[in-house]
């Protein structure tokens, strides 16, 4: 199941989208999320959809892979679509089955909301699929830099995030090991009533937490010995490069926004 989920997964590649600076991608996606709400008629929604498809094509991520990975979301999407069909009662009746009446406005709203949802999910997925978690962290750190003025510990937050990301696989391995150790002692994690199964998780979590704290302590010592004294006076090994692609990306975004404003009702 974990293999199919594509949330937060990164697929290395060399496409145009992959090579964009994480800063421009982050700005783009966040602005896009806001701009999506400008659309309110067929032309504007079609424009958004077409644009999203273009981005997917440029990222060279197969559409099949994307849709397959987002299956749980698509179920939610179909569900919202039917809610709109069933409960919006405006405009002409398109279909009358006696117990069920489908109104024109309901169908329109259902499609619009679904497209909006789809476009948002696709765009954010493309962001995480084409940007490594560590670059996203770097991007966020640089973009949040102005907030240092209001005493937000930006550097510390970014370091926390990158260390958390780095330890995910380590702790996953550890969980696996503990699980096997407990299974070898006869604990059954996969059967029995829910209450029993929740109880069986406790002997898994306790050793995991104990070792995580131990790791944290070791890591803190190692960092201190290697001269870590907070963000002050630190240089950066990961350099972000803003080039013509990033400027182009933002120019395209501005054009798209202008078109949306022009065509909306």
């Amino acid at each position: 199941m974990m293999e199919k989920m594509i949330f937060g997964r990164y697929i290395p590649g060399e496409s145009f989208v992959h090579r964009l600076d994480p800063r421009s991608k982050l700005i783009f996606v966040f602005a896009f999320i806001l701009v999506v709400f400008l659309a309110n008629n067929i032309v504007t929604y079609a424009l958004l959809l077409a644009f999203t498809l273009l981005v997917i094509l440029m990222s060279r991520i197969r559409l099949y892979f994307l849709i397959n990975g987002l299956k749980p979301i698509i179920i939610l999407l179909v569900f919202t679509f039917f809610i709109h069909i069933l409960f919006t009662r405006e405009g002409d009746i398109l279909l009358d089955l006696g117990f069920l009446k489908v109104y024109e406005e309901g169908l329109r709203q259902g499609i619009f909301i679904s497209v909006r949802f789809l476009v948002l999910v696709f765009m954010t997925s493309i962001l995480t699929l084409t940007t490594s978690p560590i670059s996203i962290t770097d991007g966020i750190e640089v973009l949040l830099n102005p907030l240092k003025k209001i005493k937000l510990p930006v550097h510390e937050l970014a370091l926390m995030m990158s260390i958390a990301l780095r330890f995910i696989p380590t702790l996953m391995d550890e969980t696996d090991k503990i699980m096997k150790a407990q299974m070898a002692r006869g604990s059954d994690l996969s059967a029995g009533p829910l209450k029993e199964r929740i109880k069986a998780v406790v002997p898994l979590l306790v050793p995991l937490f104990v070792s995580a704290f131990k790791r944290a302590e070791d890591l803190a010592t190692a960092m201190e010995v290697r001269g870590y004294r907070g963000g002050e006076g630190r240089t950066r090994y990961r350099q972000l490069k803003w080039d013509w692609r990033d400027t182009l990306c933002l120019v395209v975004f501005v054009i798209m926004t202008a078109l949306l404003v022009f065509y909306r009702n």
Partner: protein
Amino acid sequence: MTEILSFNNVSFSYTPDNPELRNAVQDVSFSINEGEWIAIVGHNGSGKSTMVKLVCGLLFPQDGEVRVMRNVLTEENLWEVRSNIGMVFQNPDNQFVGATVQDDVAFALENSGVPYTEMVDRVHSSLAQVKMDKFLNHEPHHLSGGQKQRVAIAGALAMRPKLLILDEATSMLDPQGRDEVLKTVRALREEIGLTVLSITHDVEEALFADRVLFMNNGQKYAEGTPSEIFSLGDKLVEFGLELPFAMRMTKLFKDNGVLLEGQHMSEEELVNDLWTSNFNK
């Protein structure tokens, strides 16, 4: 010879309010000169790890003084001292800070504000020194234990340290990883004359050292060349240390009436003596 590190009558207790408990480190003195490899051996609780913490200023002694590069270690010069010391810890996973190999090597450089272009240079050259330059973008969970420890050594080397401390750096590795790490350290000593302080309870590792410090109950029990220390024989076993494999074999041979001359530190010496032993009859 330049002195790199010295302990002068250093004592330390984790419970200074309770004088009944014995000190973790009691009146220890020794010094390390440039280019030497010193091994500190001892069983668990003998004060080895406390000594490491005293060297890098994680703890300060209650009595005596620790001198690094001839300067007494104090709160003021702590960070300068640390930039002269490279450390490799026991658990390969818990000291890997960066997301990839090159980020981790750069971590200490970033901390001390080295400019970007020099940083790239130093990261590449120190990874080449430990032969990990083909793994620049690898993530830690795709590396073996020995490889991770070599990255940790590279991270220390990038700072051009005067002293490299191995704090049980091979104890969590498989035999292959252990050999990898020890070979790397030996090669570095030949190449750049690095000074090494290794804390270990692996006696085979201590054989590589120029001098061995044998710790027991927080005190320095003996100091000398590996052959001097291991000739203590049963005394070491009594304090919970194992003898090197070749020496244990020698003892068994002697017990069974095979005539052998003296001590044998390495398997090669033992084998040479074994096949010539018949001529001595």
